[in-house]
């Protein structure tokens, strides 16, 4: 097909052919570039998601030993201090501290129910410290200890689980 229906020289036809060929090349390059960027963006998203998951997993594994969580005295060096967590629960300053979207500590045994508040503590099951969104969660088993007092002070520990979720990739 030619656009030169009237008075077209051979040279003009060649130039037109070349222009079309160039246009085709450019369109091909743009489309392949677009494919490349879409592929790259999705693999980048995957990488970021994976990194955030790794970070959340590491945090879940290690958080019991951080100063905000750990039972500081030597009786139980790897336990979580529930009394400290209750003090930490409503602290706005700690909301962005762990780079997490979700951070929750749950008592598994003995079985209890409900979110811990000052009125029902310690007869409750979970303390949610960060709850921005429900992201994929990593978890780890922990010992949850608190001070009790009957005539004299003693430590009561229960079995618990810690759930941590990194930021979701949009």
């Amino acid at each position, binding site marked *: 097909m030619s656009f030169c229906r009237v008075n077209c020289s051979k*040279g003009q036809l*060649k*130039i037109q052919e*070349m222009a079309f060929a*160039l246009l085709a*090349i450019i369109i091909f390059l743009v489309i392949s*570039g677009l494919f490349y960027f879409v592929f790259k963006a999705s693999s*980048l998203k995957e*990488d970021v998601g994976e*990194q955030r998951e*790794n*970070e959340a997993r*590491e*945090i879940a594994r*290690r958080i019991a*030993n*951080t*100063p*905000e969580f*750990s039972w*500081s*005295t030597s009786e139980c*060096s*790897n336990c979580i*201090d529930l*009394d*400290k967590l*209750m*003090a*930490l629960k409503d*602290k706005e*300053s*700690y909301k*962005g*501290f*762990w*780079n997490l979207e979700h951070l929750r500590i749950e008592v598994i045994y003995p079985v209890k129910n409900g979110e811990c508040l000052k009125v029902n503590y310690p007869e409750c099951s979970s303390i949610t410290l960060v709850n921005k969104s429900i992201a994929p969660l990593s978890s780890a088993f922990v010992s949850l200890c608190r*001070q*009790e*007092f009957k005539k*004299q*002070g003693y430590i009561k520990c229960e079995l618990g689980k810690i759930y941590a979720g990194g930021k979701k990739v949009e």
Partner: protein
Amino acid sequence: MNKKAFEFTFGWMFAIIVGGVILFLALYFSSNLLKTENKISDTKTAKEIGIILNPVENSLGEERTTLITYPVETRVYNKCRTLGNFGQQEISVASSARGGKWEEPGNPSIFYNKYIFSEDMIEGRENIVLSKSFEIPFKTADLLYIWPDSEKYCFIDPPSYIEKEIERLELRNINISSIEKCEKKSRKVCFSGVGTKCSIVVNLREKSVKKNEKKVFYEDDLNNALLYGAIFASPEIYECQVKRLMKRTSELSIVYADKSRALSVKGCSSNLDFELIAYSNATLSFANSKEIESINKMSEEIRRKNELLSCKLF
């Protein structure tokens, strides 16, 4: 006219110009793409460094050393900021120097709970990491000291407790020697008096460290954590990290004060909450390392009182 002669027609001119433009654009985009790829890789590395430093920390108050090895020669940039409730630790990475010229570092990874004591930039394929816990009087954080494997330190006349610690930790590239026997290119850390050849001077009586013509202060009964910080970090980073540590100490003091009040309700009164609040205010208004001595005195008082309690707070 010779018909066999080369005819430079419009078609040829057009093809050369358009071909040139296409070639130029291809080269421009591919070099940009390469830069972006490098930046993405450096940004990922910075984040990964933060993640792999997690196991080095939190080691139940024990010191730990580890080695980070990169696939290529790498520069790690350590930036510390004091803004916000906890300040910020920024780590950014630049790798693969092409033709001896380093690229711009990738986007920084920000951490609020890390405290890295190092020079502003650490260059090398291997970095040594030492971790120590910082307690004032309760554990506040694990401090990380990072220096390149290529950098050698020579400790001259250190006190016996430092000497024993270095031997116990088997720290690479730290030798204990006299100034004459130190390697020429090593950083000389002098513990007894000022020498002209000393790069870092530790004044044990004044509890100060002089480095790059700047003096910073430490307290050595804090597990020597700050002393090592002052030796391995640039004075600016040291001051910033100590300020961040004080901010976290302030927040933790409030947590312990709340815990103290909650225990009082249960019948286990500690009466430490007022002192902890005062301590929180003092650590929050901490300006520079000169004030560490007065903070340490307050901390010692709280530690002493806590040890006497039947329901210990920490």
